[in-house]
Every structure is written in structure tokens, then in C-alpha cells.
């Protein structure tokens, strides 16, 4: 197994031919290639532009939207997108950091309608608000539930 890890400068230099790196070179704030997986961090204001750029670069299939809570460090939430290319047979991971002072990010449902349920799930379990989402309601928890269970400051057994 390849153990090569490339940091931002190396990715930009050695992987400039990669379609995702080429498409996002002007938008990215960080990039990393580790364990044969490419991760590109983009500012949350640019997320729709970023997914449009990778879509145009041949990454045609949106696999997954999720979130990681890095509490107590900031920016706290890393909204994570996995996007696959059927023609290139590779995937790219986009990360958009969302700080706790403004828990909102733009929805990508206009680019991929598949993101609908996934963004609802992130909203439900993490409390990140997706602007422009057609139907942003809780999906797993009951409608009147208080709190967001997958946050790190939410106890595993729930509040008593």
C-alpha cells in the first residue's frame, strides 16, 4: 500500500494534472493527498462554485455529504463531500469548514439533487443550516427534538 503523503504545496506541484486539483487550484485553501485519497479544503462561501468546478472536470456522481464535529477547536464543523468520477474511476473529498459563529453554508441541491437527504441529515444531527435547500427539516429525529445528537458535546446516552 502506498504511504505517500503530500501536503498542499506538493499536491499543487506534483498533482497539477489531476482534474480536481486543476479545477480547484484558484479556490482551495488546503489540499492533501494521503492513503491514496485526495482531500481539498475550500472556503464555505465557495462550496457551490467548487462542486460546479469538479462536476465540469468530470466528477459526475455525488456520493455522500456528511459532517465532522471538531469541538472544541474552530472552525468546528467540517462539512465533507465525497464526489466520484465514473470516467476517471477516482473520487475527491471536498471539505468546507463551518465555524460555530455562523452555522450556515450554501446547499448544493441545485447541482446534485441527491444532496437533499444528506443535507437534511447533517442539519438534523449537527445543526448546520443549508441555505437554499428546498425542504430543510429533520429527517432522522422527531420534528420536535431538541439538540443535535452527533455533536461532540451531546452525550452518548442523551440528556437526562
Amino acid at each position, binding site marked *: *500500500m502506498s504511504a505517500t503523503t503530500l501536503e498542499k504545496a506538493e499536491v499543487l506541484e506534483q498533482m497539477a494534472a489531476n482534474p480536481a486539483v486543476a479545477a480547484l487550484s484558484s479556490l482551495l485553501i488546503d489540499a492533501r493527498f494521503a492513503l491514496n485519497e485526495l482531500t481539498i479544503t475550500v472556503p464555505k462561501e465557495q462550496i457551490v462554485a467548487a462542486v460546479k468546478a469538479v462536476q465540469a472536470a468530470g466528477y459526475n456522481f455525488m456520493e455522500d455529504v456528511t459532517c465532522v464535529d471538531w469541538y472544541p477547536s474552530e472552525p468546528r464543523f467540517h462539512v465533507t463531500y*465525497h464526489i466520484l468520477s*465514473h470516467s476517471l474511476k477516482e473520487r475527491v473529498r471536498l471539505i468546507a469548514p463551518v465555524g460555530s459563529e455562523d452555522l450556515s453554508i450554501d446547499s448544493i441541491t441545485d447541482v446534485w439533487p441527491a444532496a437533499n437527504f444528506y443535507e437534511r441529515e447533517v442539519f438534523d444531527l449537527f445543526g448546520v443550516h443549508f441555505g437554499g435547500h428546498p425542504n430543510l427539516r429533520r429527517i432522522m429525529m422527531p420534528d420536535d427534538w431538541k439538540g443535535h445528537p452527533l455533536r461532540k458535546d451531546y452525550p452518548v446516552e442523551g440528556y437526562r
Partner: protein
Amino acid sequence: MPTSVEDLINPGVEDVIADSKLHGNIDPAQDQTMVLNMGPQHPSTHGVLRVVLEVDGESVVALAPDIGYLHTGIEKTCEAKFYQQVVPLTDRIDYLCPMTNNLTYCLAVEKLLQLEIPERAQYLRVLLNELTRLNSHLVWLGTHAMDIGALTVFLYCFREREEILRIFEMVAGQRMMTSYFRIGGLSMEPPIDFYDRVRNFLKIMPEKIAQYENLLTGNPIWMGRLKNVGHLSAADAIALGVTGPPLRASGVDWDLRRDMPYSGYEKFKFDVPVSQVGDVWARYEVRMKEMYESVKIATQALEGLPEGRITAVAPKIILPDREQMKTQMESLIHHFKIVTEGFAVPAGQVYQGVESPRGEMGYYVVSDGTAKPFRVHMRNPSFATLQALETMCKGRLLADVVAVIGSIDIVLGEIDR
């Protein structure tokens, strides 16, 4: 824009349907639509799926799936367990393909640990995964046919499924929640009579699949209910995140086993059935052909099974043999350490995608360098496929909704997690 989530209003599904743009197209004076609730307790929703339908007479005007009735918070539970303790939780996500879930999780963690898995373990994993696919497709076929009214097929399918479950019981001691795979390999060597039993099963299986096809394929009622129902175009399928047999039935030639091989799938020869039609019948055809291919792969894995270890050489990650643990000091220490404090996994994040019977099953595992996963997220095929339900059912008859739900083969356990 609301700043806190509590500011948002949470309307019920009925309100959403009332607000839908389709509703506006109906003349209020002639308004004859009715909101109909299907589920969560309904025999043809395969679990606890609730579908709220707006119907105009017999035709569906709008449809909204309502899920979450089976939410158990598995992703949250994973964060409180050691890496090896997560394996039994993964079985419980999808009760029809426990081995596939085990495999996906183990592959993801093995990627983080950079473990080399011996070929024998890889072959056995492939063999058991293809048996799991047969198991899942048999349940799909039986229940789908039962929804349409062909009750006989169910009994035949469950007869063969019983044999697969007995094989699972032989290797794992459990019929459904197997937890047979371990991070780094398999939990134990299969018993001696396992190989003959699998060989016999794989020998009779193609004949049995032909038998099911005999019962259904030429049947005029079956054809009438399935053909030209629930169309999904390739573009819609990709836009809505549909994977697996429904994607291939819509004409997209994509199978992770062939296109992004894992666990040694590149060593096996098999075809990927694709149909260009995109209706319920096409999904039926694709799955039936897939069952023959699964038998082919499983036979290759069984006949070409190499000798060797079933676990990687990593004493600090894999529990030692019982005998070694009782006789060697070092093994005892490793055993004690793994059981009491787990093993640390290097910081990093991986996404591992696997072709499960229902489509792309993906595990996204984030490690912060400790013995417990920082975040485990499952990308489940049924969850995305369910979004395509409205596209497939809109404008069709109410009875077709049952055929379409059957054809996308959902498991609510993995949708709600």
C-alpha cells in the same frame, strides 16, 4: 436566514405536500385529490417506511417518503467504542448483508492502519460476500414477488436462503448478525465441512435461479405489473445518487467490484449485467443475472482458495490464538492490551466504497490517533435510492408504488441507522 436551528419551523409532511407546486396545478373547484398515508406499518414497505401520497383517483400526484422510525444512532454509538467493538454494530445496519458491512468497515480501518491482508482471507471474504449478495437478492425476490401477488416464489427463495444462513452459522456461529470479519482478517478458520457444503450449494444454485425465473419471467401478470412501470433515466439516476442494480438497470455501466476493485476482486472474472430500459422489469432482470454472476465469483473464490494465514501479521491489532495466549507471556500481554485499551489508529481519514447488494456502501472513518474512532459515517445505498422514489412513481398508478418500492430493494435499517 434563521441563525439558530430552533428558529426553523418544522411542518409535517402533509403541509409540504399541500405546498408542493403540483398541488397548484389542480383546479380547486375540481379538487379531488386525497392525501393517503402508507406505512410505517405496511406489509409492502419492507419495514417501517412511511410514504405520504397525494392521489387523484388512482394516480399519484405527489409523494414524500418519511423516514427515521428505525433511527438508533449507530454513528454516535461508534464514537464511544473501540475500533474492534464497532464490527458487531455494523451487522445491525443492514440485516440482509452483514458480511458486506463488516467488510466495508474492516477495509476502511485496515487502510488507515496500512495492513496487508493475506490472500486466503481476501478470497474467503469475497466468497462470503457473494453468498451474502445471493442471500439478499433471494429475500428481495421473494418479498418483491409476494408484493405483486406471486406467493409461491417466496417459499422457494427462503428454502435456498436457509442453506446460506446455515453456511453463515458454520463459520460465524450466528445466522444473521455474523460479525465474522475482523480488522486484519477473519475471526477464525472455517470448519472442515464448510467447503463441501458451499461447493454443493454453488452447484445446485444456478438451477434454482432458473427455477425462479421459470416461475416468473413468462408469467403474464408478472410482466404486466413490471414492464413499463417506474421508469428512471440514466441522467436522473446519477443526479439522485442511485447506485447498484437500479443504476445499472438504467443503463449506467458501473460496478465498484470491477471499476474500483477492493479485497482482491480484480482477480475474479465476471460480467456486469446492464439494461438500457430503466423500468421495474429491467431491475428484476439485472438482479437475476447478478445472481448467476455471484455464483460464478463464489465458485472461483472457492476453487482458487489459497493456503495460508487468515489474519495479517500484526500482534498488537489482532487477538492472538487462544493457545498462544495461554502459553506465551507476550501474547497474553497483547491480548490484555487489545481487550482493555484497544489499539491506536494513526490519525487520518478514509472513505471505502464497496458494491453491496443494494448499491454503493461506503464507510467514512475519521481517526484522531486514539483507540476509538472520531467519526464513523455510513453512506448507505438505500438512503440515496429512496430519493428517486418520487421520480419513479409520479403520474403512475397507486398500485405501481408497491412494485417500485419492491424493485429498489430498500432496507430500512440502513436508511435510518
